[in-house]
């Protein structure tokens, strides 16, 4: 049924796309509008393009002595490093050009080549003949130099603007491990990645997406490790996107994901360079978007939500234990209200008698059925959370007081809600934060299971869980089964799912991702400390 609706929407979208493309051809940048030979013509064009743009600076000047060459630079105020502009662009052109030996005999025929090759002391200078591409460069923060008599412009890359520094991301705190997080600037982000993987096989391809915003998007992958087909598929899906603006990677996520109607995200995201580097090393592809610290990674598996960077930095035993705690927490957060309802209303006989008496005593005199109680508390919790997330800190305390005292204490004291229900809801909420990557999907599943449990008891829960399992098993992310390595079962990959094997034992990359270059280290590197006799030598 969903498939049919999806198909209809797809057809509709295609029609829309075809229509809008024919309308909007002007705003794209098709090649073939060259820079004019006449400086005046160029100046007029630039002025026309940037009319009413207060942040554009156009500076006209003359190069050389005697038979001077007219020129002008264009840049966006605030996106250019002014010091570099003054010292390495304007000063050489206006001042040094008069005295430096190569420029002495200023030859009008060779002036542009001279300027490009021996005047501008800037690393990144490009000569571009296409007027629209020059304008695009200027808008991205480059400085364009137009020189009289030449049908091309020089684009100098001296970008520099106010940015947030590299900080520890709030969403993924670690006790042990690198604390840096991505920032809003694409270049900074790619450099953070490059610093982790100093290898020319780390390929970073860029493209522009967004009809109006022209946002830079980079696709990063490790050549020889990532599956070429997946990389090609990522490129294809990104190229197909026709959207007017990309303000966050979430926009792209919705265009490239495999299961748009699923509550589960089949595209991963993270703020930490070390996490992205680890995923690249396993054969995944990363998508970096300018303007957001959240980097997308594909293919994304369900199990990734349960793996945390720190698992791999701390000792394996504790990491394994914590991983099981996370599985348990996920089960608790989706199923505990439903289980509570079904145990108290349908299957009282399943609870040991003393426990049942306690629970029954707590529910004594509660005016609502357990399922209504659970539903109410669940909704109140979601409200409290939503209120708490975006509140300024001073007001936040009010929420905690209202939440903890009024709803927690007083509702129980007034006999509106059973105290055991408060415990269940609190447990659900806290467990939900353990696997934060799936917390939004968990909320939805929890409500569905609760409704089923209220209607059919344990049978309802089982039907709900089986439905969930069917759904999880039917999802794919860029050709990889979403629920692997559990379903389909890949036994060798369980070394990093059910346990966190020691690093020297994880010889192979995950089979589902890096199958064509599976070995990531030399096997048999288990530390082999010397026997007792040899050990004593150190003490001598």
């Amino acid at each position: 049924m969903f498939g049919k609706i999806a198909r209809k929407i797809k057809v509709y979208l295609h029609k829309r796309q075809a229509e809008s493309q024919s309308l909007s051809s002007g705003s794209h940048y098709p090649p073939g509008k060259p820079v004019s030979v006449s400086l005046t013509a160029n100046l007029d064009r630039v002025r026309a393009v940037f009319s009413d743009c207060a942040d554009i600076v156009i500076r006209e000047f003359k190069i050389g002595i005697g038979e001077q060459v007219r020129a002008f630079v264009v840049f966006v105020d605030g996106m250019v490093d002014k010091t570099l502009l003054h010292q390495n662009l304007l000063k050489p052109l206006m001042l040094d050009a008069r005295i430096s030996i190569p420029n002495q005999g200023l030859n009008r025929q060779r002036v542009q080549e001279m300027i490009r090759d021996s005047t501008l002391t800037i690393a990144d200078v490009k000569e571009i003949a296409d007027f629209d591409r020059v304008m695009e460069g200027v808008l991205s923060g480059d400085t364009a130099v137009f020189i009289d008599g030449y049908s091309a412009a020089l684009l100098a890359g001296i970008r520099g603007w106010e940015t947030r520094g590299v900080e520890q991301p709030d969403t993924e705190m670690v006790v042990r491990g690198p604390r840096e997080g991505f920032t809003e600037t694409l270049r900074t982000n790619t450099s953070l990645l490059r610093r982790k993987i100093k290898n020319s096989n780390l390929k970073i391809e860029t493209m522009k997406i967004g009809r109006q915003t022209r946002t830079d998007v980079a696709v990063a992958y490790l050549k020889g490790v990532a599956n070429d087909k997946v990389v090609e598929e990522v490129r294809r899906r990104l190229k197909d996107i026709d959207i007017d603006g990309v303000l966050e990677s979430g926009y792209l996520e919705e265009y490239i994901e495999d299961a748009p109607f699923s509550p589960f995200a089949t595209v991963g995201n993270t703020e930490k360079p070390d996490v992205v580097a680890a995923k690249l090393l396993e054969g995944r592809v990363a998508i970096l978007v300018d303007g957001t610290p959240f980097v997308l990674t594909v293919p994304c598996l369900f199990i990734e939500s349960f793996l945390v960077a720190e698992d791999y930095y701390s000792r394996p035993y504790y990491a394994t234990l914590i991983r099981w705690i996370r599985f348990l927490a996920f089960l608790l957060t989706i199923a505990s209200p439903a289980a509570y309802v079904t145990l108290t209303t349908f299957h009282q006989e399943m609870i040991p008698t003393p426990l049942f008496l306690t629970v029954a005593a707590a529910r004594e005199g509660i005016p609502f059925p357990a399922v209504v109680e659970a539903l109410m508390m669940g909704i109140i919790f979601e409200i409290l959370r939503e209120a708490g997330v975006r509140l300024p800190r001073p007001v936040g305390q009010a929420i905690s007081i209202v939440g903890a005292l009024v709803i927690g204490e007083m509702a129980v004291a007034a006999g509106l809600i059973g105290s055991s229900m408060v415990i269940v809801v609190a447990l659900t909420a806290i467990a939900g934060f353990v696997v934060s990557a799936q917390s939004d999907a968990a909320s939805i599943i929890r409500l569905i299971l609760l409704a089923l449990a209220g209607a059919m008891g344990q049978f309802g829960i089982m039907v709900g869980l089986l439905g969930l399992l069917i759904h999880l098993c039917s999802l794919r992310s860029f050709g990889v089964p979403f629920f692997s390595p559990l379903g389909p079962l890949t036994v060798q990959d369980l070394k990093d799912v059910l346990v966190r094997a020691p690093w020297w034992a994880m010889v192979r990359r995950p089979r589902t991702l890096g199958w064509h270059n599976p070995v990531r280290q030399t096997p048999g590197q288990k530390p082999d400390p010397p026997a007792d006799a040899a050990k004593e030598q150190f003490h001598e």
Partner: protein
Amino acid sequence: MLEGGKITPRQAIFILVISRLTIPLTALPDLSAPPANQDVWLAGLLAAVPTMVIITPPLLLVLRFPGHNLIQCSRLLLGRAGAVIGLLYVWFFLQVGATCLRLSGEYMTSVPMPETPLSAFLLFMAVIAASAVRNGLEVMARMADIIFPVIAGSIIMVVVLVSKEADVKALLPVMEEGLSPVLHGAFTTSSRLVEILALVMVLPHLNMAKPGVVWKIMLYTVAVFTAFFVIIILAVIAVLGPAQAQTYTFPFMSLTRLISLADIIERIEGTHLGIWLMGVFIKVSLYYYLAALGLSQLMGLKTYRPLVLPVGALLVVLSIWLFDSLPALYRIIQYQIWTPYALVFISGIPLFLLVVAMVTKKGVKQP
């Protein structure tokens, strides 16, 4: 081919074993089949031998026609008449599915939720099975990958936890009435492996459908199933006693009820309900899928998906209509009726087709 999905040999084994284990986990009709005493476990163990014999004709038949399943083989060999045989099989799959569906509903209404109408359970189960069938064999196989370890682990856990109630003396004397009732029991137990038909139906979807692999799948299925079957029967007889066990409607569930450990692990029949529902789900969806698949092949459809809802409706109706009550259902799955009936489908018809294939020299001859 009707579906692009491929399943691995391991997934096939898991599906077949789960599906076969479903009935022993609840009804356990073998308890009252001969020898009907403490030797039933022995019959279950020996059943592996006749099982390997009766599954030979369908396997040999399908292996002669690589890329074809049972129904396609019969159409290839007999044309129109083959279609009739195909219809018979579709009926058989529907019947197995409906029996299992009804059993799940009866279980739910008789033990945990006596006040809920039977049809509610049937509908819920059918809807969830329909959703699995729509998603295809591959998804069902993946679910089996997850469900099998859960079921296997739970059975072992239940048996270990209940072992302190076990009385090994209940298993004695071995072969009280001699060997022949045991052999008879082995034979009737073997006729319950309807899953061989599932294998020969999904063979074209099997990854590496080489004859050696197929035989190995069957061998492992029989071995793994027999191991669990014997464990279940041993536990049931040792804990409940051979005579007492026959009186229970759901012996293994009653066994689970007896677990009581440290005053906190008790009354865990919810676990049994959970694993059994998972098993039933796999079994119902498997036969539901086979019926839809077979029907679509008989009708010459490109995909079985348009048939999912009609076949599902048929399944629900049949599950209500075929049996008046739980005892009526039990009568049909008792050995007196079931053994000859199932043997016709498991061995009889495939043997006939195999002979036809050999006489007309159709298909690839297997060494």
